[in-house]
């Protein structure tokens, strides 16, 4: 029983992390139709910055976390200006390749800056846990799940109920018409990329403080995020949440018992099946389906 509960919590917190990553794809996708391949490296970057501020600079964790998130938002804005902003009117493929270029740069920067050594990110809950029915449950994992649920609710509210969300959805449906109706597309795109990067930062800080990490931290989460977003049907907030959880349960819970060696392949197989058979996912994100 203890083994099961441990794996369940493990799976749910992993699912929460990839849900956050999936959100970080969806926000700019809604605004600009661009899928960024740099998100994984943004996730790594935020964990590295956090670790640097706390360990090397001796900052208090709360200030360091806040500063990291602010830096990440700024990095997202710069990212938009560099890729989407400077490639206005060019084929989507070219913008996506530009995001690959940025991914290269961040990755190269991190490995130059911090090397390949494993890093540790302090957090007040790090290493603290309680036991329940024989299962060891770290508080940090519960925090990840809690924050993700909070973010899901906030994003859902923002997309469905605010003017900002309405403008984003208008932009997703028809950019030309949205522009003619006074939606400030440039500003919206900048904000969307900022939020996206902020979400990456949140993911990096939350996952990075679970255990020691290295430069490969973000890539696995990014791939999971892709899977979650597709299973959920690109564009649907609730769908991405469910997609992330389903995927995590399959990989971490089912994979804890069966196919242990190849469990990392399970989500890939799942992703593959979805793309081949049911591209629009479980929840059809009507407004963005077909635009990819």
């Amino acid at each position, binding site marked *: 029983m203890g083994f099961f509960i441990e794996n369940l919590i493990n799976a749910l917190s992993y699912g929460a992390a990839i849900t956050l990553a999936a959100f970080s794809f969806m926000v700019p996708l809604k605004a600009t139709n661009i*899928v960024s391949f740099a998100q994984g490296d943004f996730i790594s970057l935020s964990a590295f910055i956090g670790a640097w501020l706390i360990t090397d600079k001796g900052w208090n964790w709360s200030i360091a976390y806040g500063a990291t998130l602010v830096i990440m938002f700024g990095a997202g804005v710069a990212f938009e200006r560099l890729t989407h902003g400077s490639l206005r009117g060019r084929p989507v493929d*070219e913008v996506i390749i530009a995001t690959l*270029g940025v*991914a*290269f740069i961040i990755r190269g920067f991190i490995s*130059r800056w911090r090397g390949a050594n494993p890093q540790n990110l302090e957090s007040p809950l790090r290493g603290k846990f309680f036991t329940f029915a024989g299962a060891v449950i770290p508080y940090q994992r519960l925090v990840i799940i809690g924050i993700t649920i909070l973010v899901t609710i906030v994003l859902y509210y923002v997309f469905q109920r605010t003017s900002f969300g309405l403008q984003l959805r208008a932009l997703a449906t028809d950019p030309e018409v949205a522009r003619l109706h006074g939606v400030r597309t440039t500003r919206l795109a900048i904000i969307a990329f900022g939020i996206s990067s902020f979400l990456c930062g949140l993911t990096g800080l939350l996952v990075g403080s679970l255990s020691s990490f290295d430069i490969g931290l973000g890539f696995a989460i990014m791939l999971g995020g892709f899977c979650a977003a*597709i299973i959920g049907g690109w564009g649907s907030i609730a769908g991405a949440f469910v997609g992330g959880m389903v995927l995590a349960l399959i990989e971490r819970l089912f994979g804890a018992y069966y196919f242990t060696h190849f469990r990392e392949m399970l989500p890939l197989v799942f992703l593959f099946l979805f*793309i081949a058979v049911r591209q629009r996912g479980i929840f059809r994100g009507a407004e963005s389906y077909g635009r990819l």
Partner: protein
Amino acid sequence: MDASNTFARRKTTPGARNNIRNIAIFAVIAIVLELLLGDSLTQANLVNLWMFYACVSIGFYYLFGVSGQFAFSQAAMTGVGAYTSAWAARDLPVIPAIIFATVITAVIGGLFVLALRKASHFYFGIGTLALSETYHILALQWNSFTGGEGGEVYGIKPLVLFGVDFTGDKSAFWLMLVVTCGVLTVGAMLERSPVIRESKATRDQRTVADTLGIPHLRSRVTMFMLGSAIAGFVGAVYSHWKMGLSPNTFGLELGLGVFLMVILGGLTSKWGAMLGAAFFVWVPELISFVEQYKLMVYGAILLIVIIRLPEGLIGIEHVVMSRLRKHRHSGGSDEPVSIAETVVGDLPASLKPTSELGKSVILSTEGMTVRFGGNTAVNNVSLELNSGEVLGLVGPNGSGKSTFLNAVTGVVAAEGKLSIFGEKIPLGNANALKKAGISRTYQAPQTYLKLTCLEDVLLSTSDRKYTGIAAAILRPFTTLKHERQRWAIAEDALEWVGLRHLADTKVAQLTYGQRRLLELARAIAGRTSTLLLDEPSAGLNAAETEVLGEYLKKLHAAGVSILIVDHKVDFLNSICDRIAVLNVGNLVTVGTPDTIWNDARVVDAYLGTQ
């Protein structure tokens, strides 16, 4: 034979003309590099690595640049080839192992595309990312297959031919030179066949390619298989050359590196990939600063090239060359001739419909209905097109004329029955129409901006024998013979519409009116018996419309049947045998031009009820 004598019959496509020369130049450059650098151990290795990367990225050029499939799997496919060949060589001699690995990689690639045939662009890309990750996990974990802990394999059987061991840098150079020239030769054969231009057509506008009778799935699958097979092949060769493998050799860095190589070099030709590979290999070696900051520099270069130099390094050469050429030609006679001054000749025999049709119904619809959501755009329209007639289709804006044409040609989903020569065919089958000799044009000319005029017209030629990749490689001379016949027909078509002098010009440089004529040339190059024209006079002035009318009369005289959608009443009256009127999706009436405009229902449709 008139003006056509001033042009020599072409022997080879413009892009392919320099292939043999360029392959020779490449071989000379490689040999010179080897002689200069061969004594320093690392540099000799770099020449070999350059050729290895060049092959991988040429494969990627075909599947990403030519076929437009966004794929992250190229490095993984190289790895699949390498590990498969190492595995097979445990029981087989090396050469059969390499062949086996190449076939396996191609099959995996082909099955992959088939499985994801319905996936749209970026889902497909993410699918290839999953494929690449799957490879990586298997290489790390599947020890019984790879034959080494964590994919680290040593002691792979070396390639020994005629007593020469091809593992040393010196001997491996000759091996890689032969491999690279082989890959380039295959590329040259494809460029002389329809394979490349049909892939580009599928890449740029899939629906138009469908109506031209180009099987788009076949094109995608073969190009992906080709790209994967090249990667698998050189990967297999690599494993026997190095005698050892590590999963990271074909990891993320190479996966992203192939993007850098083809984009930096230029996506427009395989030589761009070679140039990019040279950069990828030598720049970090020559500038030690770059070696330290390798990934960052690669990323920055990728960004700068995309933003400032989208054509890549090859593009610089094109810019320079075209400047030089312009300079040489200054004062030449390449000024565009206005369409209005064209003298329209008879349709040449090579373009006339292949068979006399006699009196028959070519195309008939029964109860054709198209709905967009709750809106019925075409409602229960039954219409017949007889052989040898020009049938006009008119109606106010939004009456469903173009939609009707799109429904017939399978561009939009519709309900109803469609028969061709009395035979029922399922709706949405663009290919069946093309096979029956029915071609169409579009309201906005759908020409291929990135192809030359000749290539664009060639897309619709009716001879579809020897168009596949297998024919291009196994029967290159028969393929070329058929290509020459197609060139002749396409040139006749261009000649007839007065665009022959622009045969080798990119379509993007044409004026709007010229694109209209090009589309007409393309439609008739298929020796078509029936033309479906969607507002051919849109955007043309009065004089140009008159010339268009002359063309249509000549086609009519040659026995081509025409269904024409248009707005210009005088124009239609001058060419049509019958005119059908649509209003709000309903067929109002069909009749001769004299009677139809006096019909009260037609007047109502245009002017409203009195």
